[in-house]
C-alpha cells in the first residue's frame, strides 16, 4: 500500500463522510459548512485525478459560491421543516440507492475506457492556438458547448430577474470587514488576471478567473458596498449579458470569415480565444455576483 494510495483512500473517505454529514445534519448552518468542506475535499480529489483546471473551478465555484448561496438560503428558509420518512420507505430507498451505486461501480470499473479523444486532441493541439489541452477543448474544439453553457448562466440570471427574490443587504458586520475587503479585492483581481492569462498554457481560464472575481465581488457586497444603486445594478446586468453577446457575435463573425461556425481564422486562434475569454471572465463574474445578490425591490436581511 504505497503512501499515495493511502492518501487517496483517506481523501475518498473524507469526501464521503462530509457528504453524509451535509445530507443528514439537522442544523442548517452545520449542513452548509459540511457541504463546503465536501467541496474543498472534492477539489483535492480532482487534483489527484489529474484535472487541475477542474480543481480550481470546483474550489472557487463548487465550494465557494455554492456554499455562499446555501448560507444565504439557510438564513432565509429558517429551520429544517421535514418530517422524517417512514422507516420502510427509508430502507427501500437505501436499498435501491445501494444497488444502483453498486451497479454503477461495476459498470465504471470494468468499462474498457479507451477514449478516442487524447490522440485527436494531441494531434490538433498545435493549430488550436493554445497549449493547455483543456482550454483548447473548451474554447476551440467544443466551443459550442461552452457557448451554450454561458447561455445557461444568462438564462439562470433571466429567471432570477423574473422572480426578483429579496435582495441581500447584510447587517453591520463590524469594522474589520472593510479593511479585509480592501486587501482581498486587489489581490483577487491580480490572481484573476493571472489565471486568465496563463489559461492558454497551464491550468486556468475564463471560468476560474471569473469565479475569483465573483468572490471579490461578494467580499465587496459583504463589506457593505450597496449594490442596489440602480446604475451599478444596470451596469452589472449589461456586463452579465455582454458575455454571451460577444461570444455569439464572435461565432457568427468567424463563420463569415472562415465559413465554419466557431472556426477561428487560422493563425489568429489564440487572439480570438483570449478576447473571448476576457469578455467571458467579466461576464461570468458579473453574473455570479448578481445571482448571489438577487434582484428584488424588497430588501431582506
Amino acid at each position, binding site marked *: 500500500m504505497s503512501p499515495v494510495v493511502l492518501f487517496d483512500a483517506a481523501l475518498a473517505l473524507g469526501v464521503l463522510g462530509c457528504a453524509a454529514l451535509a445530507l443528514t445534519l439537522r442544523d442548517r448552518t452545520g449542513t452548509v459548512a459540511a457541504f463546503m468542506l465536501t467541496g474543498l475535499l472534492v477539489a483535492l480529489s480532482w487534483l489527484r485525478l489529474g484535472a487541475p483546471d477542474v480543481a480550481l473551478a470546483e474550489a472557487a465555484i463548487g465550494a465557494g459560491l455554492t456554499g455562499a448561496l446555501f448560507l444565504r438560503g439557510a438564513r432565509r428558509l429558517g429551520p429544517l421543516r421535514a418530517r422524517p420518512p417512514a422507516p420502510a420507505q427509508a430502507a427501500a430507498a437505501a436499498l435501491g440507492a445501494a444497488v444502483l451505486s453498486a451497479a454503477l461501480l461495476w459498470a465504471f470499473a470494468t468499462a474498457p475506457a479507451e477514449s478516442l479523444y487524447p490522440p485527436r486532441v494531441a494531434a490538433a493541439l498545435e493549430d488550436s492556438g493554445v497549449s493547455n489541452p483543456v482550454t483548447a477543448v473548451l474554447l476551440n474544439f467544443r466551443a459550442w*458547448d461552452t457557448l*451554450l453553457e454561458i447561455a*445557461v448562466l444568462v438564462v439562470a440570471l433571466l429567471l432570477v*430577474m423574473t*422572480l426578483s427574490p429579496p435582495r441581500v443587504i447584510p447587517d453591520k458586520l463590524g469594522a474589520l470587514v472593510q479593511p479585509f475587503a480592501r486587501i482581498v479585492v486587489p489581490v483577487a483581481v491580480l490572481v484573476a488576471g493571472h489565471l486568465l492569462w496563463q489559461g492558454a498554457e497551464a491550468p486556468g481560464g475564463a471560468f476560474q478567473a471569473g469565479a475569483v472575481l465573483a468572490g471579490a465581488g461578494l467580499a465587496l457586497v459583504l463589506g457593505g458596498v450597496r449594490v442596489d444603486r440602480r446604475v451599478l445594478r444596470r451596469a452589472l446586468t449589461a456586463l452579465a449579458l455582454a458575455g454571451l453577446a460577444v461570444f455569439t457575435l464572435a461565432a457568427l463573425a468567424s463563420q463569415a470569415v472562415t465559413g465554419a*461556425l466557431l472556426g477561428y481564422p487560422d493563425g489568429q486562434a489564440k487572439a480570438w480565444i483570449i478576447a473571448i475569454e476576457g469578455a467571458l471572465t467579466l461576464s461570468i463574474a458579473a453574473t455570479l455576483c448578481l445571482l448571489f445578490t438577487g434582484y428584488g425591490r424588497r430588501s431582506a436581511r
Partner: protein
Amino acid sequence: MVTETSLLVTLPFLAALAAAAAPRAAATLGMAATLANAGFAALLARALLADGARETSLGGWEAPLGITLRADGLAALMIGMTALVGSAVALQAMGRPAPGRPAPAGGFWPLWLATLGAMNALFLSDDLFNLYVTFEILGLSAVGLTALTGSRRALRAAFDYLSAGLAGSLLLLLGVALAYAEAGRVDLAAVPALVETMRGRIALALVLAGLAVKAALFPLHFWMPAAHANAAPPASALLSALVVKTALYVALRLSLEGGAGIAPARAALAVAGSGAMLWGAWNALRAERLKLLVAHSTVAQIGLIALALGVAGNPADSTLWQAAALLMLSHALAKAAMFLAAGRIAEELGHDRISGLNRTELRPGAAEFAFAIAAVSLIGLPPTAGFVGKWVLIEGLIAREAWIWVALVMTGTVLSAAYLSRVVSRCLRGGPHVAPGARRPAWHMGDVAALGLAVGALALGLASALPFALLETTLT
C-alpha cells in the same frame, strides 16, 4: 457565408439578450425574432427538400472531436413545428399585457426566445453532452415561463419542475459519463457501439430514464400537471406543446440510431406510454379545472406518442416512425391551440371550473370553436393530422400483427374522446339565460392565435404529404 443552421441556433439567443437589455422594446424585438426564425426554418426545410440532409461540423473539427450540427428531415420538421407554434403563441403574448407584473429585465420575451434558441440547438445537436447542456437551458427557461405569473401555486410548480428537470438532466449526464467510459466517445454515432454490450445498454437506459423524467412520461410525470396548469396561457401552451416534445424527439433519435439492438428500451417506452395514456385519461376525466384537464390530457397524449415511438421506433419500417413524428407535430399544434383557447375561456369567464363553463351569458365563441377543433385533432378524428398519423400507425401495426398495441391505441382514442367531450359539450350547452342576439365578446389576439393553430392542425391533415416528404430525408 452564414448559413440558416447557424442563424437558427444563434439568432434567438441574441434576440433574448436584446429583449432583456431593453424591456420596453421586448415585445417588438421578440416578435420580429420569432418571425425571422420561422423564415429561416422554412428556408432550411426548402433546402432539405431540394438537396437532402447536411451535416456542418462546428469550428471545422470533425466528429468525434468537434460537435456537428445535423440538419436532416426530422430536425427540420421539429424546428418548423417550434417556429410555427412559437409564432402563434408569441402573437397571443403580444395581444395581452405581459403576464404577471413586468419584471425589470426578465419577463416572457427573453425567456421565450431562450427556449426557442435552446430547442433549435437541441434539434440540430448530434452529441449527447451537447444535448445535456441544451436540456439545461430549456429546463431553466421553461421554469422561468412557468413562474411568470408569480402566484404561489405557479412558484411551487416551478420549483418541482426545476428540481425534477435537474434530476433528469443529471441522470442523462450519468448516462453520458458511462457512454464515455464504455465507448470512449459521446456523440450519437456511439449509440450503435453502445447497444452491443451490457454496460452500453445501462448507459442508454440511464439516458432514456433522464429523458422520461423530462418528457413527464408516466411513472415520472408528477411534476408536470401542476406546472402546466398553473402557468400563464402562453407559457403553458409552449410547455405542453413543445418543451415536453424535445425529450421524445431525442428518444426517437436514439432509437433510430440504435436500430434493432435497442428493442428492450423501446418495449419499456411503449409500456410506460400505455400506462401514461390510461393514467392521464383517468385524471383528465376527474379534473375539475379546465387547464388541469388539458394538462392531464398532455400526460395521456405524451403516453400515446411514447407508445407509438416504442412500437414503431426501429428505422427498418420508415412509415411507422414517420407516423409517430407526424403525431408529435399534430399534437403540438392541437395542444398549443387548446391551451391558448382554454386560457382565453378562463380569462373571459374569470374562472376555469369545467362545471361553470356554460353558466355565464357571454362566452368567447372563437376560443370555444378553437378548443373544439383542437379536441377533434387530439382525439384523432378526420380530417385532422392526428387522424392521418393514427391511421398510418394502425395500418403499420396491423401489418405487423401487433394487435395489443392496436387495441391500446384505440382505447386511448376512446378515452380522449370521453374526457374532451366533457368540455366541448358544455361549450355547446346554451346558458340558462342566454338572451337571443347576446353580443359575443369581441375577437382578441388570443382567439386569432388559437384559431390559427387549430385550423393549422386541420390543414396539416390535408397537407401531410409535406411532412412525410421532409421526413424522408432523415439520416438513420
